[in-house]
């Protein structure tokens, strides 16, 4: 268990600032998710923490010690790759044993550790197989076992679930979280999937263009986004932004409901011209514009199916947002204005 810290970390690829001055601290035992669109620098950041890339400037600290100049093998970290990167010519057992052999552990101890790790991930019966004989889910477990076996101080996981099919991904997510809780190892997890990030992370760092836009609990990130980028990146569909003077009013689609459902006095009422209704089973997504505004302001409402108000395309309805559900953002900088409730 350890802390991981990045200090003013910069990485240039030729002239591209892949990582542009990142300060970040992963606390002891924390599950920290790096979330961002592709090309935001999250993988580069992780590779620098692993020691696979050398930063242009800035420092990496593991457990308070500067490791910037140390090679990966001197950092006692384990990494799980998106492709799993299992050694194709070695059996599962030898794959898992590889990190132990690299540190020169005696053979009987290696066998015990491999059995322990295999048992933990339920892959004992696969030990004699080669990676090509395994399914995607099995490969992922082998990759995790190989990462866990040497009891590293930090786990780095680079989109480890993205190669699994949707059904398997949900159960794998649940298991992953449980293993991390059980082992208590500091974990940094890279993903572009916000559902994964929200479900797994103790905290989430949202990255864009090589910078950390916001770091906080899933709750914070969702309800109090630091700027309009985070507001529109997180949430599906994203937060609605409506111009008002020098500010944006931001509110989540599920907070934007027909007036008769939310009769509370303290709300802002918008005339909502509906253009399209999507029925998604558990909810309806209602697309439309706020009536009488130029330029057109597109907004979306997400209405649980158990609210049965009749809504049809081309109608105009009164929709309401409670004031405590509204965040305000500066129109020039995009930053959230504190004490945001309107």
């Amino acid at each position, binding site marked *: 268990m350890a802390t991981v810290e990045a200090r003013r970390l910069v990485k240039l690829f030729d002239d591209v600032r892949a990582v542009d001055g990142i300060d970040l601290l992963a606390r002891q035992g924390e599950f920290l998710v790096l979330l961002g669109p592709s090309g935001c620098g999250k993988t580069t950041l992780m590779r620098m923490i692993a020691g696979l890339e050398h930063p242009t400037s800035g420092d990496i600290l593991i457990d308070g010690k500067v490791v910037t100049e140390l090679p*990966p*093998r001197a950092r006692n970290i384990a990494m799980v790759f998106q492709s799993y990167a299992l050694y*194709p010519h070695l059996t599962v057992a030898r794959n898992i044993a590889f990190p132990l052999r*690299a540190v020169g552990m005696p053979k009987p101890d290696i066998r015990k550790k491999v059995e322990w790790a295999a048992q933990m991930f339920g892959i004992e019966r696969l030990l004699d197989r080669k990676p090509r004989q395994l399914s995607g889910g099995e490969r992922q477990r082998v990759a995790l076992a190989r990462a866990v076996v040497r009891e590293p101080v930090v786990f780095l996981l680079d989109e480890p679930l993205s190669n699994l099919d949707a059904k398997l991904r949900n159960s794998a997510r649940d298991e992953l979280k449980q293993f991390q809780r059980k082992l208590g190892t500091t974990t940094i997890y890279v993903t572009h999937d916000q559902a994964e990030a929200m479900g797994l992370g103790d905290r989430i760092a949202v990255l864009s263009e090589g910078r950390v836009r916001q770091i906080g609990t899933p709750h914070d990130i969702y309800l109090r986004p630091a700027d309009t980028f985070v507001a529109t990146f997180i949430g599906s569909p994203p937060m609605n932004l409506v111009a008002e003077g020098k500010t944006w009013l931001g509110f989540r689609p599920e907070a934007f409901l027909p007036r008769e459902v939310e009769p509370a006095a303290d709300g802002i009422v918008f005339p909502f011209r509906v253009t399209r209704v999507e029925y998604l089973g558990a909810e309806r997504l209602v697309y439309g514009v706020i009536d009488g505004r130029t330029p057109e302001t597109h907004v979306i409402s997400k209405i649980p199916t158990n609210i049965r108000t009749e809504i049809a395309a081309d109608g105009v309805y009164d929709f309401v947002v409670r004031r405590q559900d509204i965040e305000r953002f500066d129109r020039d900088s995009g930053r959230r204005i504190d004490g945001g409730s309107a």
Partner: protein
Amino acid sequence: MIALPAGGKGRARWSFVDNERRLWPAMLAPAILYIALLVGVPFVLSLFYSVSNATVGSRSIQFVGLENFRRIVESGTFWLSLKNTVLITVVSQFLVIVCANILALALTGEFRGKWLVRFLILLPWVAPISLGSIGWLWIFDSIYSVINWTARAVGLLGPHEWPIWLGEPTLAKTSIIIVNVWRIVPLATVIILAGLSSIPQDIHDAAQVDGAGFWRHYFEITGPLIMPITLVALLFGIIFTFTDMIVVFVLTRGGPYDTTQVIASWAYFTGIQGGDLAGGAAISLFLFPVLAIVAVVFLLFAKRAEVT
């Protein structure tokens, strides 16, 4: 469906290209014809000569059974040639694989002037073997040897030391090995380089993070992963070296006293220069079973070692 052009002629052309049953024999035919004429015919001819008494000077040919082979096996030169062929092949190919691996690993890195290094490494392969060998003939020359003059200039050779590279059996064999290594290394490097670049970067990253140092990384991950393609390089190298006569012909002509004779060069000296066509054909046929076995063994091994 492809829209066919209107005219009858156009339709005929299209249907020929689209008809796989007629297309593949047509495309294979030139290659098969080429092999049949340039490899098959001489091979059958040498089979025929090897059981005859054909010579350069006589127009009559009689069947003599295995007499030629009996003569060859009883000759001391044959066993010496065979030993030399095997020795030169084994030692040079071992060195080729080592050097090619080092060069290929170096070329996977990024550094300034990489294209120049790559070009220089490929140069021996581009040059004709005979020209290259003549260049080496000068390098090993008994009076003008660049190696000897350089060694003396830097003090490696004393005043009375002056190795005669091509005049002394061990040094002559060493020289032949050096030239063969120089000649095959470029091909092996390029083949191994292709093998190295087919390994996903993630595998290397994983090995690094898993704590492997350079040697473990190479011998337990990279080496085994490029094993199948290394075997292909080795197979080519063995065949090229085993069947080569040019290097020996240019450097030593088999001398001194036949001590550097190899099967191919001895077949040439017997059959063409000595005029004993039948004997030469019989000697060269000894190459065939050896090479056939080598090829089969390696292809089987490469198939088994396939990893992905």
